[in-house]
């Protein structure tokens, strides 16, 4: 169990790290001499051999051998729970492999804790960031590696260093801003800066694009390209094959803890990758019949909602959703979609306007009352809203149903037998892995956590289903599954309101599409009228009239 070499690094490596630090701590550019361009292009900077890691009940990594070449962008893909995060956490020293070895720059290393990884020149950006909200960007970047003079932190120098670093790689961010005030996309840049400031030569990005808008993703790719040009090696975890094809040099696929294979990106394609990931052919488009919409199930009229800061976020929105149809809401995130959805589901009180369910007003009712009338809601942030991470899978599966029979008996007491049975049923039919209702949900992979949310909300047999980013962070197999389930709900006569930043998702599921911009619905299109260009144009505030004209003048996509 207790091994002695826990955090041992060879003397040579330690010296190297020291030299590197001394050379250039506060400077932006990495000293060139360390990038010996003469070296062969296919040298592996990081080499994993026979890595195995078990958790109680699962083999998260099963004998994985993988080489990461210097200077490449190496995509790592695989289904939810296939072991991507675990593998990279081992490299970063957060977990310890049961067996297997890691070499860095040709020499075997023992990475017992992140500090060692950082000293070696590894950096990792997690999906859930770890910044100190109350500190500024610059303070966060230099944390634990502060430039100082006479024992005092030299804040000016820190700001300068951070700014230089940011300019060098095109990471736009205000070094003096407080982290609490910046957007998620910017937070991610701060995390990247943090790694670069510590001279990371290998940068691991765990699902960086899951939280980004398409525009921000575009910018991130630009940064990644800059980094590659300047010699940084990047391991890039993602679920989106499109992104793999767009940015990576090579791609490795994991499935159920095993490495399925590594391909040169140029020599592979969507189909092959999807199949390698899931182990079968994947429907890349949802199969669905045209909708047969019936009467209106839910509608909003003249809705006005203010956001948390008291600014108008939803401005005079009117919409209706009919039984048996999917109404998609397309829009760049932050244009009032979340406030709209929270007003419908009772989490915020609208300032003005009506929310009607079967013609009866429900605005201002408590979330519980609204749920009980047949509204299900998949929230966009499963960690903030959808799940109680410290609860078991079973207990999360009854959130919102917990005070109703059969989960309560004699008015007060939990009926644990029913709760278990309910969980066992849903875990089985939604293929939650591992299929253990007692497992604390925090230890499930992100995708499996999402499946729990979806399973719970669908199991209520809703009349009206509100889905906000329902497939964020999910693998293609799971996305396919959830898309089919949404369509199945629709075909059973549920009205579905779908909010997604993913245009593909909107286009493949919706029957009608409302475009939201700056708190207003600027256009409602039928699926036949909609395509990516036109939606994109409207989402950015384009003139609806003109959008029609452009369409006529021949848009070729689709």
């Amino acid at each position, binding site marked *: *169990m207790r091994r002695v070499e*826990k955090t041992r690094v060879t003397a040579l490596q330690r010296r190297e790290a020291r030299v590197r630090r001394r050379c250039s701590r506060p400077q932006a550019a990495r000293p060139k001499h360390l990038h010996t361009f003469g070296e062969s292009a296919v040298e592996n900077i990081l080499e994993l051999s026979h890595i195995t890691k078990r*958790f*109680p009940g699962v083999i998260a990594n099963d004998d994985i051998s993988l080489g990461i070449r210097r200077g490449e962008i190496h995509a790592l893909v695989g289904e939810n729970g296939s072991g991507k*995060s*675990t593998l990279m*956490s081992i490299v970063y020293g*957060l*977990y*310890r492999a049961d067996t297997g070895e890691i070499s860095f720059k040709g020499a075997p290393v023992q990475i*017992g*804790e*992140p500090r060692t990884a950082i000293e070696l020149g590894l950096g990792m950006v*997690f*999906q*859930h960031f*770890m910044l100190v909200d109350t500190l500024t960007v610059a303070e966060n970047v230099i944390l634990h590696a502060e430039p100082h003079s006479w024992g005092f932190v030299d804040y000016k120098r820190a700001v300068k260093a951070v700014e230089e670093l940011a300019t060098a790689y095109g990471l736009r961010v205000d070094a003096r801003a407080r982290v609490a005030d910046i957007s998620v996309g910017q937070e991610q840049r701060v995390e990247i800066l943090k790694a670069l400031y510590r001279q990371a030569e290998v940068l691991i990005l*765990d*699902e960086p694009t899951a939280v980004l808008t398409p525009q921000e993703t575009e910018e991130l790719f630009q940064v990644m390209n800059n980094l590659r040009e300047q010699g940084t090696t990047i391991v890039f*975890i993602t679920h989106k094959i499109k992104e793999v094809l767009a940015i990576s040099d090579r791609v490795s696929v994991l499935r159920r803890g095993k490495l399925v294979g590594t391909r040169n990106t140029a020599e592979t394609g969507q189909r092959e990758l999807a199949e390698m990931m899931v182990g079968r052919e994947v429907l890349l488009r949802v199969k669905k019949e045209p909708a047969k919409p019936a009467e209106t199930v839910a509608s909003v009229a003249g809705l006005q909602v203010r956001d948390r800061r008291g600014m108008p976020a939803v401005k005079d929105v009117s919409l209706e959703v009919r039984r048996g149809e999917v109404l998609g809401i397309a829009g760049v995130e932050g244009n009032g979609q979340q406030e709209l959805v929270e007003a419908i589901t009772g*989490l915020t009180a609208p300032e003005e306007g009506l929310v009607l369910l079967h013609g009866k007003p429900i605005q201002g009712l*408590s*979330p*519980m009352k609204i*749920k009980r009338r047949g509204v299900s*809601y998949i*929230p966009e942030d499963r960690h*903030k*809203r*959808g*799940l*109680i*991470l*410290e*609860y078991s899978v079973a*207990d999360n599966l009854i*959130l*919102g149903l*917990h*005070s109703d029979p059969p*989960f*309560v008996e004699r008015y*007060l*007491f*939990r009926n*644990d037998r029913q709760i278990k049975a309910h969980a066992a049923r849903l875990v089985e039919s939604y293929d939650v892995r591992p299929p253990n209702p007692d497992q*604390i949900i*925090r230890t499930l992979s*992100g995708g499996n956590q999402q499946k729990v949310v979806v399973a719970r909300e669908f199991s209520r047999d809703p009349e009206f289903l509100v889905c906000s980013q329902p497939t964020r962070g999910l693998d293609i197999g799971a996305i396919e599954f959830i898309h089919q389930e949404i369509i199945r709900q629709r075909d059973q006569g549920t009205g579905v309101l779908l909010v997604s930043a993913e245009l593909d998702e909107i286009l493949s599921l919706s029957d009608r599409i409302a475009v939201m911009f700056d708190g207003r619905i600027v256009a409602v299109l039928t699926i036949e009228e909609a395509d990516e260009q036109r939606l994109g144009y409207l989402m950015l505030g384009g003139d609806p009239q003109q959008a029609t004209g452009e369409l006529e003048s021949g848009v070729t996509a689709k």
Partner: protein
Amino acid sequence: MELRQSSLSSRNLLVPLGSVVLALLVGAVFVLIAGENPITAYRVLFVESFGSVRSIATTLQRATPLIFTGLGVAFAFRCGLFNIGAEGQLYVGAIVAAIIGVSFGDLPRVIHLPMAVAGGMAAGGIWAAVPGILKAKLGVHEVINTIMMNFVAYYLTDFLVTGPFHGGRWAPETDRVFPTAALERIFLPTRLNSGIILAVVAIAVVYVILWKTKTGYEIRAVGFNPGAAEYGGISVARNMVLAMVISGAVASLAGVEQVLGVHGRFIQRFSPDLGFMGIAVALLGKNHPVGVFFAAVLFGALRTGGAAMDRLTDVPRELIVIIQAMIIMFVAADELIRRLFARRGKA
């Protein structure tokens, strides 16, 4: 390393036990400074607190009020609330129990005793409800208000016990409660009384509420993640108030037990910081009812044994205070470490 992922239960025990051991080691240094052999001192400490049935009874008697305050604090913690007002809650509970106890002399025991106990609990519950409501409705931090309520409780009981309910004797105390309202002694000559039975019942009830009822599900959900609780149709405000009321009611039983079982009357400022000790007990007991029991017994033992150590060796009883403080520091340091690790969650 591996500990980080290993099962929660062993980890949960490891930290409190480790803290106690470390604290005793640090204490040993002070014993040496006092010029005594640590082994001798600790032997006295142990023998005097657990060495005989009688010393065990004394230890349990000392532990009884701490179980109540510890449970109360732990309960609020489970809802994410830091109740440092147990001291005030036990004072109002005690004075109400005393007032009921010195009145209604003609009631039968089956009515009088439950009435005194329930009255004390109600007072403690109401006392804690005030900061609960202020927190739920206005967002005022409960730490500030529970402290303030402590001072109100001190002066209110000062007034009652020196004014309207001042007993026949000169001292600032009420009359003796009627025997029909007393928690009877169950192991003479110690002052162990049937309050310990009440404490065990309270442990069971708190356990059941937290893990076997929908109320507990809601309260813990609010404690873990208010955003998700709200989403799940759980009223955050209502559960915060409820948690404070239950917390205060349980904590006030410490005062009730002291009045009806130990002193037999309300004595002005009788509590040796039982409410504040409850915070330490909850912390060491990991906010778990069973953990609270063992933590309270440990603290009870330290006080029992400490007095004896003071008498029988050269070590002053203040050593106990040092050990208690050390235990709290080590447990709290672990909270810090645990939080640091929780931050770096997985994707």
